[in-house]
């Protein structure tokens, strides 16, 4: 049982990343009602671009910034150039188009940045910090810290800023929002930019620990979606709770039951949660849905 703190810490750090991915799912779900299957690819792309930037001798901070900006532009372009062409952008069609965009994104990253796995150095080295017998990789702290910051920032954005509140207004009453002069397309573009940027950030901060490669996106997207559903689709705190719950479940199942079946255990728990509480742990059902 001595490894329990280690397992929980590992769960917390993977869970934080799941939470960031889930945040992206939630933002796009709120503005389109669709499941954004490209979210995982954006995470992967964030890691890959940051690594490429670092490999090209950019300072680490700049490389991460480059990744966030590049992926954000990709997100905005996906919305502007492709999604806007849809005659009737229902949730299902948007979901399907996002699958296609995910395929293209993955393929483009492979063609441009290559098939090799890539890595980044830890943001503050990789000398473990010793905390009463608990050896912590400093990147773990970065991950948890940045996730907290992003979550608080997102909360502040949606609660305080004009644009954030406008996005919530569009989600709550699209027609009334249009009557207030809020362009729903602006809100949509903003949602894609936000989701892509948080995705890229998630990719950049996890890369020092796990590496990244052009085919890492699918699994991350899959886990992030699960976390979003577990916490309650469309709920901001839900993303955090869902992500950390899923990360810890995986880690504990891996450590205490079997690393072979950890995914199965995690998903079984997820299914049970869904059946018992269909709206997710923190979901409020239809109250704040579009």
């Amino acid at each position: 049982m001595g490894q329990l703190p280690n397992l929980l810490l590992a769960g917390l750090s993977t869970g934080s990343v799941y939470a960031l991915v889930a945040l992206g799912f939630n933002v796009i779900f709120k503005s389109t009602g669709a499941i954004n299957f490209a979210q995982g690819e954006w995470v992967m792309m964030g890691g890959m671009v940051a690594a490429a930037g670092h490999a090209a001798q950019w300072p680490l901070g700049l490389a991460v910034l480059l990744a966030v900006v590049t992926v954000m532009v990709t997100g905005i372009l996906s919305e502007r150039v492709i999604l806007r062409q849809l005659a009737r952008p229902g949730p299902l069609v948007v979901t399907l188009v996002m699958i296609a965009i995910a395929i293209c994104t993955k393929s483009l990253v492979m063609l441009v940045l290559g098939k090799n796995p890539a890595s980044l150095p830890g943001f503050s080295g990789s000398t473990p910090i010793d905390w009463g017998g608990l050896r912590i990789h400093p990147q773990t702290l970065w991950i948890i810290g940045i996730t907290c910051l992003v979550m608080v920032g997102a909360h502040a954005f949606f609660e305080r800023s004009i644009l954030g509140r406008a996005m919530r207004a569009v989600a709550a009453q699209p027609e009334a929002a249009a009557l207030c002069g809020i362009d729903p397309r602006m809100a949509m573009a903003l949602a894609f930019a936000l989701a892509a940027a948080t995705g890229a950030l998630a990719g950049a901060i996890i890369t020092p620990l796990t590496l990244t490669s052009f085919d890492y996106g699918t699994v991350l997207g899959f886990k992030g979606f699960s976390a979003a559903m577990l916490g309650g689709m469309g709920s901001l705190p839900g993303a955090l709770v869902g992500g950390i719950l899923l990360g810890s479940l995986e880690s504990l199942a891996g450590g205490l039951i079997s690393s072979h079946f950890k995914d199965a255990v995690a998903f079984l728990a997820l299914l049970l949660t869904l059946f018992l509480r269909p709206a997710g742990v923190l979901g409020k059902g239809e109250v704040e849905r579009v």
Partner: protein
Amino acid sequence: MNAGRIARASLLAVSALLFAPFALAQGAIRIGSILSVTGPAAFLGEDMKAGMELAIEEINAKGGVRGRKIDWFFYDAESQTQKGLTATRRLIDQDKVDAIVGGGNMSGMAIAMLGLTERAGLPFMSTEGAMDIVTPVTERQWTFKSTADDEQVMERLADYFAKKGIKRVAFLGDSSGFGQSAAGQLKKVAAARGLDVLYESFNPSDTDMMPQLGKIKDSGVQAIICWTVTPAGVVFLKQAQQLGLDSRLTLIHSYGFVDQRYMQLAGDAAKNLLLISVKFPVGADLPDTDPQKARIMTLTRAFEAKFKRKPNQFVAQTYDAIYLTRNAIERAGGTDRAKVRDALAETRNWAGVGGVFNFAADRHSGLSKDDLVLVNFRDGSFHLADYK
């Protein structure tokens, strides 16, 4: 009624495309290859493809085999067994190749493919690792492989442990065919050599090995053997370092992990790492008496000239495979499948770049533990750590 007609027409159009006439070199030898150059296994596939390309170019430049050039049919299996199987059918039935070299750089895929090649009676030179590809030989009449057997690898490791007085080790293998096969062999070897082994495993896509490493840490082993070809092996190194295991225990990676890129990704987490490998990556460090040294250096120069980068042992693996096949065809005096198969089985003492190959009717895997060395990674390249 007519929707159907169009469906039919489009199917016919598809078949027409598939039948597009191929420019067949008259009398050329037809060799088919399947590797994964996209998808998760693409990391190895690119190098393996390059090794084949180089070998075939060399052979054709020297006038081919008995005057017949090699016509090469390459398909990307995209790391998907289904794609590999379709490509195999295509090679057998449509391209009508004389031999297949390369099984998708995934052991599982090679095993799936050999069901078809065995039925078709087609020589298949696998470039994948798992022993199950060539055992039992009674069910693998037409299948050979150009890689070392895990049995030999484990024997070699056991020799090393004996030399260093290591008795208790942990084996941390990925759950793919590569890791499972090694675990199976280690069990046999360990029983015979009195090694005490703790077995743990992980999924190739895992990004966290803390649970396994935690258990290993508490178990008091002297060495950890990690068996994977995926980047998860880097995560293993980093997390082992995080737990301080790298300075206390002997960490060993498999021959599948001998890759500069992985070493660079691992950074200083790999500074105490040993890898069991064929001799190819440390060609320059070999004593001049080694029969392979000259060949390794030649290939390295040729590869660097063509691809502008350093070759690794995956290049060697497929380069040898093509040459083994070529030699067999030459000795068989043509492409008669049974004769080629027999000629392959009669390969003796042929020094390739990956080792000295000895096949036999009851042994379709050519390398032995003498072809294996332990290497480490220092100053940007691999160096010999333990020779014989």
